[in-house]
């Protein structure tokens, strides 16, 4: 290479947008500033938390609660005072960040923690024709990719891993893993007791024998006026861990080939010392600050790594429940699970453990349960630093328009062909990508039964990732979100409740719908095919979208990593923790394609076959997996 490829001339006029000021963001902002980038804009809606401080080195204890974007700016200006950093404490999906906003930048750099925002930024970059450098890390693994419209694949050309989902009955009736118990404790029990009472909840759908009417059951969770809190707690305990299990056991069919659960009643695990205990508890509980109310603290338990006995779990359960009703009564009815809410984590841990004990599943520590319940993705500073360095290297190539040297780079935990950092040539755009190639999609749906609302929620928002959609049938506007004239609001609201075939402009088999997101400047056409029946387990949405890159489930992925060389998803480096908490392994399957120099990829393929199954490394911080999942199972009914 003759000319110095990393000359500063391309950098000194550059204006860049960073999305995310978290783990990767802090490292990236520092490295950009040191590398001489003079004008950096940074968007992050988050505020600083204690668990960020181990790697987001621009933040200090005293910054907890403040805007990440703003604090990061101030910290970097201390060592590079003469550059411009413009912070936005806002959501990148806010309408102010439209295509025109994106157009002012030479390159956009993502340090995001969720799929939704990544897709949104991808579309805006495509619409504004601004190159995007995308990144992600988890533990020791990371990756950096370059997306340039028309030149390389876009972020959505490749299938993304589907969030892990669990069948409703596994959660409500037949858990076999600890995670099932955590989902039950968090999304059903916690939501039932402390969340929105009007939400549908599958907690009491236990068996198909209809032994009791749901009306009766509803009463159990309602705390009667002046009902003693300890008595109420034990009633809930006995109902969910005792009575419900007995009821489930009565359905013999379920247990033919399964381990039979054991009902657990409070009197069995706690005997009669309970009353005494509570007398002492009040004294210890001196702190009234809401988020510091803790059942562990009032019971004198300190180590979150300990695995509690069934008795300890039961005491934590009752104490946490009592504390919610006595110290945080005002919040009851509006609470959602939050991994940073100590009391909520304690409650969920204990409830999951008691249920696990019932079903003969090994118990776990609060630390582990918190990780599962909060979908906490492992994160260390070193990987983020490495990835940030690689992002800047790609950004400089993009500024120099050095297309032939763009690379997608994987940061590996275990070397592959002696490489810890493995560059690969970027892929070409996927010709059938519905995002960057305008290929129409097709949707099988029952047009006589499915409402427009279902289509908007399950397809337009959940699958197509649109933020403010507009739906047209030929030239007729059926629906529009966002700023709409008053007289139209009522019409759209009415349309949402109509089934497709009865809309003012009927949508039936053969109709083509146009769905557009004005903010993302993203349009796609969907050909509608009418279909009567759907399989409830396999097609829970009651509609099937095809022609787009379907998320790969873990099982499908496994098949692909062993030998299906033709799949476009082969180049994904994928990672997942294995069940037994041992080390993260990486599979890197590479399509037979030209690699830099004459490297031999056959050994990587061979290696891949020995290694464990993985998912794509995607998210840097808090992966929203179970939450995304919840929607689908909230809306489902058991037969």
């Amino acid at each position, binding site marked *: *290479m003759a000319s*110095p*490829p*990393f000359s500063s001339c391309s950098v000194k006029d550059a204006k860049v947008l960073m999305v995310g000021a978290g783990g990767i963001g802090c490292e990236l902002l*520092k*490295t950009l500033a*040191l*590398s001489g980038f003079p004008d950096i804009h940074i968007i992050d809606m988050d505020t600083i938390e*204690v*668990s960020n*401080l*181990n*790697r987001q*080195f621009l933040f*200090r204890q005293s910054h907890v609660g403040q805007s990440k974007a703003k604090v990061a700016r101030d910290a*970097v200006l*201390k*060592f*590079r*005072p003469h550059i411009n950093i413009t912070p936005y404490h806002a959501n990148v999906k806010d309408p102010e960040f439209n295509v025109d906003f994106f157009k002012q930048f030479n390159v956009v750099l993502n340090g995001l923690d969720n799929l939704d925002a990544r897709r949104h930024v991808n579309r805006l970059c495509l619409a504004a024709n601004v190159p995007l450098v995308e990144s992600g890390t988890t*533990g*020791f693994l990371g990756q950096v990719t370059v997306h340039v419209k028309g030149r390389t694949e876009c972020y959505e050309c490749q299938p993304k891993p589907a969030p892990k989902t669990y069948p409703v009955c596994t959660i409500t009736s037949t858990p076999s893993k600890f995670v099932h118990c955590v989902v039950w404790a968090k999304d059903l029990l916690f939501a039932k007791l402390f969340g929105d009472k009007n939400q549908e909840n599958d907690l009491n759908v236990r068996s198909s024998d209809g032994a009791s009417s749901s009306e009766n059951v509803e009463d159990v969770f309602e705390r009667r006026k002046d009902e003693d809190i300890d008595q109420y707690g034990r009633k809930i305990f006995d109902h969910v861990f005792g009575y419900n299990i007995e009821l489930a056991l009565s359905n013999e069919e379920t247990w033919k080939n399964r381990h039979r659960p054991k009902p657990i009643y409070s009197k069995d695990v706690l005997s009669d010392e309970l009353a005494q205990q509570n007398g002492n508890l009040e004294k210890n509980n001196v702190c009234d600050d809401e988020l510091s109310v803790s059942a562990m603290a009032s019971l004198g338990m*300190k*180590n*979150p*790594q300990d695995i509690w006995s069934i008795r300890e779990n039961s005491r934590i359960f009752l104490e946490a429940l009592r504390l919610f009703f006595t110290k945080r009564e005002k919040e009851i009815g509006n609470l959602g699970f939050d991994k940073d809410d100590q009391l909520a984590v304690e409650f969920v841990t204990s409830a999951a453990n008691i249920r696990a004990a019932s079903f003969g599943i090994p118990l776990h520590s609060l*630390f582990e349960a918190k*990780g599962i319940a909060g979908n*906490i993705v*492992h*994160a*260390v*500073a*070193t*990987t*983020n*630093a*490495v990835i*940030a*360095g*690689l992002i*800047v*290297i790609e950004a*400089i190539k993009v500024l120099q328009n050095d297309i032939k040297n763009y*690379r997608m*780079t994987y*940061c590996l*935990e*275990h*070397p592959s062909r*002696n*490489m*810890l*950092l*493995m*560059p690969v040539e970027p892929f070409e755009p996927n010709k059938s990508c519905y995002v960057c190639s305008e290929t129409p999609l097709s949707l099988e749906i029952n047009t006589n039964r499915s409402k427009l609302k279902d289509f908007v929620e399950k397809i337009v928002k959940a699958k197509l990732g649109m933020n403010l959609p507009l739906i047209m049938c030929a030239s007729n506007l059926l629906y529009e979100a966002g700023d709409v004239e008053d007289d139209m609001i009522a019409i759209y609201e009415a349309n949402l409740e109509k089934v497709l075939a009865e809309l003012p402009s009927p949508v039936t088999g053969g109709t083509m719908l146009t769905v557009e997101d004005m903010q993302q400047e993203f349009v796609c056409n969907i050909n509608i095919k009418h279909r009567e029946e759907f399989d409830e387990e396999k097609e829970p949405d009651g509609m099937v979208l095809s022609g787009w890159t379907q998320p790969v489930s873990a099982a499908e992925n496994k098949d692909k990593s062993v030998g299906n060389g033709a799949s476009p998803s082969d180049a994904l480096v994928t990672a997942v923790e294995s069940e037994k908490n*041992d*080390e993260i392994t990486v599979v890197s399957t590479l399509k037979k394609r030209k690699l*830099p*120099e004459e490297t031999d990829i056959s050994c990587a393929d061979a290696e891949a076959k020995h290694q464990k199954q993985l998912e794509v490394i995607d998210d840097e911080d808090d992966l929203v997996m179970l939450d995304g999942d919840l929607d689908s199972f909230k809306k489902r009914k058991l037969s």
Partner: protein
Amino acid sequence: MSWNRLRLGMDGDGEELTAQETALYDRQIRVWGADAQRRLSKAHVLVYGMKGTVAEFCKNIVLAGVGSLTLVDDRVATEEALSSNFLIPPVESVYGGKTLAELCCNSLKDFNPMVRVSVEKGDLSNFGVEFFSKFDVVVVSCCSLSAKKLANDKCRKLSKRVAFYAVECRDSCGEVFVDLQDYKYSKKKQEETIGCDLKYPSFEDALSVPWRTLHKRMSKLYFAMRVIEKFEEAEGRSAGEVSIADLSAVLKLKKDLCIAQSLSESHVPDALLERLVTNATEFPPVCAVIGGILGQEVIKAISGKGDPLKNFFFFDAFDGKGIIEDISAK
């Protein structure tokens, strides 16, 4: 004493992590476990030579929560020294008259109140064996080849195991050398736990491995770094004190070395040497990459978790590859 026994000894007092530590280190404990975190909090790390790459490394291990970090660099801060070092505010009234170690120390203390960061004064070659015995990890940079070898030998003389690392970045290239002496660790493969035993050569021994015995696709950066190192040593320059004016002398030295080592000159491209002499200052993205990899390796060595690299790591932003090479006598 073996490395393993040393670690057991460190665990012996059975201290638990405090609630404060658990909250702060939550995300990384999820990566390497509470045991590893405890070991980290008892480890003492020495770094010599405060350039951008070392600043990155220091940030990483202070965040990770090592017990203590001791910095040595008596050089007085100049504008040039600050170019890729985010630990020093570029305001003369702040940095004027202070040493690089003092300035970096002040910033690093802020990063994690649970880590003791301090400064020692002195020249690497003058520190006695006793001095090194205070540390579990020694990282050296920005010093002569002979100073590195000497420090490495002193670490090896101790009955206690001291992990030794040498690191350099020039232009958009970086190199890490690792010496863990005799390193035993266990890892899980499939369902079983297997014991591993890695034998590392000293820096001196690694560099004495004849070039012609190395495999054909050995990183070109390895040879290029040796040429520059030799040049600096022969000319009595300090590390990084080269410029484009030295190119012809460097190319001649390369030729001589290749002949002496019976290595085809094509393994040491002139263009690469030209880059390394033209721009001796560090390239910040490479500092981040090398400082990150080095941080990860030190964490592995202290915690006993994960496969440590043996025994060289090279990164060149030109091709983007981060390569491990094992350079030891057969």
